[in-house]
C-alpha cells in the first residue's frame, strides 16, 4: 500500500482549519494533568496531618497523654473541614477587603464541577473544587501544629473552642492577605487592554480597570511579599500562636525536674517520615500545575530537608557529643518549614544552603535559646515552625534572586520576572512582622476568652494522672 503525499493545497486547508479551531478555543479549559496532580497533592497534605503530624507529636509526649494529642489533631482536621466548607473558603478566597474576603461563596454557593480556579500561568486552570479542597487541608494543618506547644496540659474543651475561633480570626485573614489575588489571566488581560487602548480616554478607562484588578488582592500580596506554600501563613502563624499559648498556660508540672522523655520515638519517626512525603503535596502542589515549577518545588523539598537533617545532626554531634534520632527528624522538619516559602522560587543549591542554615538555627532555638528563656513549648512549635518559618521567609527574599539561581518574581503586566533585593526584603519583613503581631496578639486574646469560658488548663491531679484517662476515659496502650 502506498501513501499519497498530501498536496500543498490540502496542507494549506488543514492549516487554516487548525488555526480557526485554536482561535475559537480561547476559553481556558481545565487541564486534566494539572487537576490530577492537585487532587493527589490535596490528599498528600491531609496525610501530613493525619497521621503524620499526629504520630510525630504523639510519640514525643508521655504515653499517658498519647491519645490526647491524637485526638486534638484529629478533631482539628474535622472541625476545620466543616467550617471551611461552610464559610472558610469564601472568607479566604473571595474579594472583600484587603484583610478578609466576603461571603459570596459561603455554603460553597456557586462553586460547581465546572467552576475554575486560576493557577500561576495564563490560560491554565484547575477545578475550583480541587483548589478549595487543597486550601482546606492547609487550613486544617495550621491550627493542628499549634497543639504541640501546650501538649500534656490543655483541656480538650479549650482546644475545641480555640481552634474554630483561631481559624476565623487569625488563619482566614492571613491566608487571604498573603494569597488572595485576581489571578494572572485577569491581570494580563487588563494590562494588554491598556497597551491596546487607542486614545487617551480609552487608556484612562483601561488603566482604571487594571488598577481595580491589581487592587483585588490581599494586603500582604499587594505589599509584594512572596510565600510559595505557606511559610508565613502556616508556620510563622502557628509558631507564634503556639508560643503565646505555652506562655499563657504555663509550664507542665515537674518541667525541668522530672523525666519527660518521649514515649515512642519510633512513632515520631513514622510521623516525621509521613510529613516529609506528604510535604511534596504541600510544596509542589502549591505550584497549582503539574509543570516544571512543581518539579522545582519538589527538588527543593528534597534537598533542603536532607541538608537540614544533616546539619542539625552533625551540629548536635559536635556540640552535645552524640547524634540523636530526634535531632535528625527535627532537622528534617525544620528544613521542610524553611523551604516552604521558597520551594517554587529558589534554585536547588539555594535550597540546600537554606536547609543547612535552618537546621543549625532551629537547633539553637530549641536548645540554647529555649533553655535560656525557660518557657515550656512542649513540642518546640515555636523553635521549629516560627523560627524556621522566619528563616525561610527571609531566605526566600534572598534566594528568589535569578543571580542565585532563583526564578525571579513574575510581573504579570509585563510578563517578565524581575528582582529587587531591597524591595523584596522589605516586603518579606513586613509580612513576617505583621504575621507575628496579628497572630500573637489575637491568639493571646482568644486564649483569654477560652480561659474565661471553659478554662485552659486541667487540674494538677488530672495532669499527673494523664489526659488520656481523665479527658477521654481511654488508655493508649492496654498491654
Amino acid at each position: 500500500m502506498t501513501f499519497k503525499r498530501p498536496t500543498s493545497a490540502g496542507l494549506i486547508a488543514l492549516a487554516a482549519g487548525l488555526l480557526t479551531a485554536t482561535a475559537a478555543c480561547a476559553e481556558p479549559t481545565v487541564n486534566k494533568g494539572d487537576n490530577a496532580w492537585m487532587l493527589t497533592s490535596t490528599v498528600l497534605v491531609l496525610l501530613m496531618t493525619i497521621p503524620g503530624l499526629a504520630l510525630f507529636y504523639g510519640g514525643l509526649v508521655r504515653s499517658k497523654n498519647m491519645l490526647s494529642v491524637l485526638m486534638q489533631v484529629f478533631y482539628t482536621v474535622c472541625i476545620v473541614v466543616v467550617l471551611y466548607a461552610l464559610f472558610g473558603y469564601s472568607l479566604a478566597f473571595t474579594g472583600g477587603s484587603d484583610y478578609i474576603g466576603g461571603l459570596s461563596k459561603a455554603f460553597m454557593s456557586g462553586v460547581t464541577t465546572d467552576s475554575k480556579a486560576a493557577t500561576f500561568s495564563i490560560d491554565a486552570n484547575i477545578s475550583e473544587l480541587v483548589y478549595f479542597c487543597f486550601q482546606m487541608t492547609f487550613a486544617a494543618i495550621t491550627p493542628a501544629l499549634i497543639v504541640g506547644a501546650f501538649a500534656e496540659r490543655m483541656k480538650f474543651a479549650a482546644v475545641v473552642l480555640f481552634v474554630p475561633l483561631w481559624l476565623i480570626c487569625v488563619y482566614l485573614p492571613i491566608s487571604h492577605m498573603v494569597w488572595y489575588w485576581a489571578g494572572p489571566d485577569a491581570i494580563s488581560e487588563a494590562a494588554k487592554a491598556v497597551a491596546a487602548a487607542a486614545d487617551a480616554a480609552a487608556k484612562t478607562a483601561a488603566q482604571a480597570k487594571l488598577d481595580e484588578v491589581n487592587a483585588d488582592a490581599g494586603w500582604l500580596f499587594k505589599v509584594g511579599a512572596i510565600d510559595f506554600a505557606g511559610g508565613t501563613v502556616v508556620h510563622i502563624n502557628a509558631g507564634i500562636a503556639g508560643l503565646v499559648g505555652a506562655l499563657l498556660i504555663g509550664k507542665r508540672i515537674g518541667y525541668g525536674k522530672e523525666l519527660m522523655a518521649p514515649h515512642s520515638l519510633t512513632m515520631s519517626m513514622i510521623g516525621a517520615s509521613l510529613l516529609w512525603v506528604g510535604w511534596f503535596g504541600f510544596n509542589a502542589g502549591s505550584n497549582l500545575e503539574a509543570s516544571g515549577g512543581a518539579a522545582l518545588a519538589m527538588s527543593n523539598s528534597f534537598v533542603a530537608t536532607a541538608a537540614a537533617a544533616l546539619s542539625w545532626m552533625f551540629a548536635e554531634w559536635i556540640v552535645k557529643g552524640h547524634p540523636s534520632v530526634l535531632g535528625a527528624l527535627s532537622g528534617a522538619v525544620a528544613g521542610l518549614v524553611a523551604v516552604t516559602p521558597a520551594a517554587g522560587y529558589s534554585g536547588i543549591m539555594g535550597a540546600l544552603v537554606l536547609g543547612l542554615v535552618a537546621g543549625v538555627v532551629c537547633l539553637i532555638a530549641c536548645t540554647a535559646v529555649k533553655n535560656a528563656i525557660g518557657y515550656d513549648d512542649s513540642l518546640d512549635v515555636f523553635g521549629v515552625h516560627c523560627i524556621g518559618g522566619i528563616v525561610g521567609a527571609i531566605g526566600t527574599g534572598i534566594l528568589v534572586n535569578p543571580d542565585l539561581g532563583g526564578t525571579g518574581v513574575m510581573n504579570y503586566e509585563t510578563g517578565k520576572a524581575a528582582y529587587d533585593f531591597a524591595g523584596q526584603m522589605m516586603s518579606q519583613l513586613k509580612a513576617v512582622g505583621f504575621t507575628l503581631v496579628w497572630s500573637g496578639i489575637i491568639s493571646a486574646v482568644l486564649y483569654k476568652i477560652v480561659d474565661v469560658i471553659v478554662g485552659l488548663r486541667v487540674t494538677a491531679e488530672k495532669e499527673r494522672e494523664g489526659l488520656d484517662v481523665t479527658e477521654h476515659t481511654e488508655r493508649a496502650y492496654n498491654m
Partner: protein
Amino acid sequence: MKIVMAIIKPFKLEEVRDALTAIGVHGLTVTEVKGYGRQKGHTEIYRGAEYAVSFLPKIKLEVAVASDQVDKTIEAITNAAKTGQIGDGKIFVIGLDHAVRIRTGEADAAAL
C-alpha cells in the same frame, strides 16, 4: 522454706536459669524492674531537654526453695550472674511461711 530473690543484669537471665535447673530448681518468677546501687546511670538528651537517668533496667527473679537448698541456690545464682563489673546485683533471702500448689493442693515441701 525461703524465697531467694535476686536482682541481676538482664542479659544474665538465661545463664542463671540454666544454673538453677542444674541444681534441681525447676520453677521461678521473673519481673522486669528498674533500680540502681553503685552503678551510675546515664544522660538522655531530647532536643533541649537533658535528663540524668539513674534508674537502670534489671531483672528480679524469685524462687522458693527448701531451707537446706538456700546456700546451693545462692552459689548457683552468684556464679552465673557475676561479671565482675559494678551493677551485677544483689541476692536477698526472705522467710517463707507456707506454699501451696494450686492444681493439686499439695502444701509446703511438696509444693516446691
